[in-house]
């Protein structure tokens, strides 16, 4: 609110003083939240870096295993083995709270299956297909972990940005404006008081001159 729009009254001054106090405490809390979120973000960032490396590693491993499997057993055999498994991994999504932010918690079921439950026969399936299947199971598991960590990191980053904007707005706009309004009201009140004193003096002078 521009200072000029403020009514220069004592009650308004009291109101603004209250607002300044409240805004300053809010600013302090938001600043603490921002610092806390940044700390949390850096912790998650480390995990995100590690999981990203793991995704890359597992992806390369899986692609190499499937390439070897397709080479040795043939794409036909690999495709035929893939037909044998119809079940899909199930994901259950829950949420947890980090400093007021709701982040997802992903739990996956039936991703890693024992060799004897992959749908194809144990006797007739080659080790290459088994190893490729296992490598892809590991990759899917890692991708799910990465999805959880990266979503948390993204949400934290959004919240840090939002909090930073709020802190800056309070620090550079709301508080200075309120302080400006407070100063304006003070000034106006002082001026009004001076005018009043002067008016009283003039009245007194006139009364003495007539008297």
């Amino acid at each position, binding site marked *: 609110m521009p200072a000029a729009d403020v009514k220069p009254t004592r009650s308004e001054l009291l109101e603004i003083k209250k607002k300044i106090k409240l805004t300053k405490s809010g600013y302090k809390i938001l600043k603490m939240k921002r610092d806390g979120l940044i700390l949390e973000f850096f912790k998650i960032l480390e995990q995100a870096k590690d999981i990203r490396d793991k995704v890359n590693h597992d992806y390369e491993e899986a*692609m*190499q295993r499937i*390439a*070897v499997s*397709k*080479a*040795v057993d*043939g*794409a*036909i055999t690999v*495709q*035929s*083995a*893939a*037909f*044998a498994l*119809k079940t899909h991994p199930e994901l259950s999504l829950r949420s947890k709270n980090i400093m007021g932010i709701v982040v997802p918690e992903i739990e996956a079921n039936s991703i890693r299956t*024992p*060799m*004897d*439950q*992959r*749908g*194809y*026969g*144990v*006797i*007739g399936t*080659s*080790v*290459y297909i*088994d*190893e490729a299947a296992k490598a892809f199971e590991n990759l899917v598991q890692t991708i799910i972990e990465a999805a959880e960590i990266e979503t948390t990191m993204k949400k934290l980053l959004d919240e840090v940005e939002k909090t930073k904007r709020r802190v800056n707005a309070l620090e550079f706009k709301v508080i200075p404006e309120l302080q400006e309004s407070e100063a304006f009201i003070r000034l106006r009140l002082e001026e009004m008081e001076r005018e009043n004193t002067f008016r009283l003096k003039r009245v007194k002078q006139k009364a003495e001159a007539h008297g």
Partner: protein
Amino acid sequence: MLSIRGSKGNYAYVTARVKAKKSLLISKDNYPKLMLMDLNEIGRFLGETQYQVEMTELATKYDGVNLIELGTSRNLARVFTDILNYSKGDLRNMLERYLMRWDIWNIKTVMRGKYYGASAEDIQEDIVAAGKFDEGYINILISLENVEAVLKELKNREGLEIPDEFVKEFQETQTLAPIEDYLDQLYYAEVLACVKCRDKAERLFKQFLRKEVDVTNLMTLLKLKKEGLAPEHPEKYFIEGGDELQIKALVDLSGAESMDRLASELTRYSFYADIKDALEEFKKTGSLSPAGLAMQRHLLRSSEKFSHIYPLSVLPIMDYMLRKKQEVDNIRIIARCKESDLAPDQIKKLLVM
């Protein structure tokens, strides 16, 4: 050995034809050249060899590595069916039983495709009609509605009936694995029963088949151990009729505390020398692939040794079939590895020559 159908078989004729076919196999010194070629060059090279017919036929529909893989596998199917068609008597019976592995393979593919709900075209692409079942019969299987209908149809085929308990188990658990394992066991039971051991060559053929059973059982054993699986009835994963590894020994070995313990138990078997390095590598990499390759090489060496002993027997025919299969595998390995940009050293390790 006379060429009368219904008697022992036309060994002289078939072995002569197979010998001629053997001379068409790609020689060892061609593999390094193939490794230096790109996919188009490999395709062109194959188009100038015995794969010409299939490569030309399929070139309108496929290209690159898929053309190479399908062309070579269709050629393998044609060559094996040709050999089967001009064999007679007991020889034909033995070869028919030996090639039943492809029928089993096709049945498994059809069942998997039906189970998954794949289209008829997708299933047809995965078929290698190198056994007794021709493409017409396999297409009938593909056209059936579901797995149960395929199993019902197989009841009409002698020697391939699936017992009701497996059908019931499939209906309850909706998993094909027990049926597939049963089919693999059935294959070896059938082929071993078919070889009557009337002469030394047949005895050697049976011994070779028993070695193959040993290799399959050993790989199953290693897979179970690697996965840390301790099934209640491990015998259901093993095939009867092995040369050195009998079911009881395999069950005992599957109870070994660790892979190290299992490796030390295996030292008393003749194939240990072939698998020793691969087991050492397993300790470092955790991969059983080298063991699989080592055992494949072991089998090829055995078949080559046997094939020279009795030139007018089933042994050189079987040796040719193994070599032909290996050639197709090697071509595919080179092409697929080229497609995936795998290092030449890695390609060399995967080749079996």
